[in-house]
């Protein structure tokens, strides 16, 4: 095994899973043609690929059973609190845009209120000074 074998063995996993770059496939295949060790390594990776595919393929039936179990459980569930006609107001405030918009309106109204109040105070103070 030489240094090019290391690189080829790194590429072997990509080759087996089908993500090896097309430009690298030619060099990969050329090396394999002349290297028994890498050919045997690739063969065992390919066997493992088949093993993994069939291993995870066996879960297919379980997926369908699991989905059906969840759907049955949801059918039995009562509607969560907040669903329906009375939740409109809550839904409005759950949106990010609505929340930020409402906060902005509160800030602007508060600022106007303080500005008006301050001007009234200054006018009243001026009236009191004039009357004195």
């Amino acid at each position, binding site marked *: 095994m030489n240094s090019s074998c290391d690189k080829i063995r790194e590429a072997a*996993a990509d080759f087996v899973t089908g993500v090896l770059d097309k430009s690298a496939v030619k060099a990969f295949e050329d090396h394999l043609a002349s290297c028994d060790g890498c050919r045997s390594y690739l063969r065992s990776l390919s066997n493992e690929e088949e093993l993994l595919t069939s291993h995870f393929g066996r879960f297919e039936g379980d997926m369908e059973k699991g989905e059906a179990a969840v759907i049955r459980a949801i059918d039995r569930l009562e*509607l969560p609190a907040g669903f329906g006609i009375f939740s409109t107001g809550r839904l409005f405030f*759950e949106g990010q845009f609505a929340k930020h918009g409402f906060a902005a309106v509160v800030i602007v109204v508060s600022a106007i209120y303080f500005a008006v109040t301050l001007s009234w105070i200054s006018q009243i103070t001026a009236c009191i000074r004039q009357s004195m």
Partner: protein
Amino acid sequence: MDDFSDDILVAASRRGDKRAYSVLVKRYYRYVFALCFGILGNFHDAEDICQDTMLKGYEKIKRLYRNDRYDQWILRIAKNLCIDFLRSKKRLRGFLAKQPSGVSNDVRDNGVLENAIVRLPKEYRVPLVMYYFDNKSATTIAKKLRISHSGVCQRIRLARQELHKLLTEEVQDEQ
């Protein structure tokens, strides 16, 4: 209804439409399961957490602000539930102090492969499991895990190399 976009289905589910949510369950159950299995490495635990996740998703769907982000949102719930589960299991294990670490107690017959998968580091195991559950599409996994396509390919490559090493060790030990 099966052809409707996530956006429409989430909006309908939010109004309490169980049929709409059932379509989302059929569409995303396998991804959630793959993530749970990748994190927990045990079929039965992954199935329990996956089902809890899908139910929790229905109960909390009003909290989802972006209808088109259901996939990422439900995977985040699954990930958090898995982490909580592992924490509670760790506490229990500390209490009982006898459970072997990291070894699956799954009863399926392919024990050698199952154990080798469980022994993979979590950061390699999750993309590897999702890859085989998702018709071997690295692009979809990259989107779901929010990592780059090359990052997914690299993790799958490292996972395969590590798995090969582990399986070879197992065979040598048996001989």
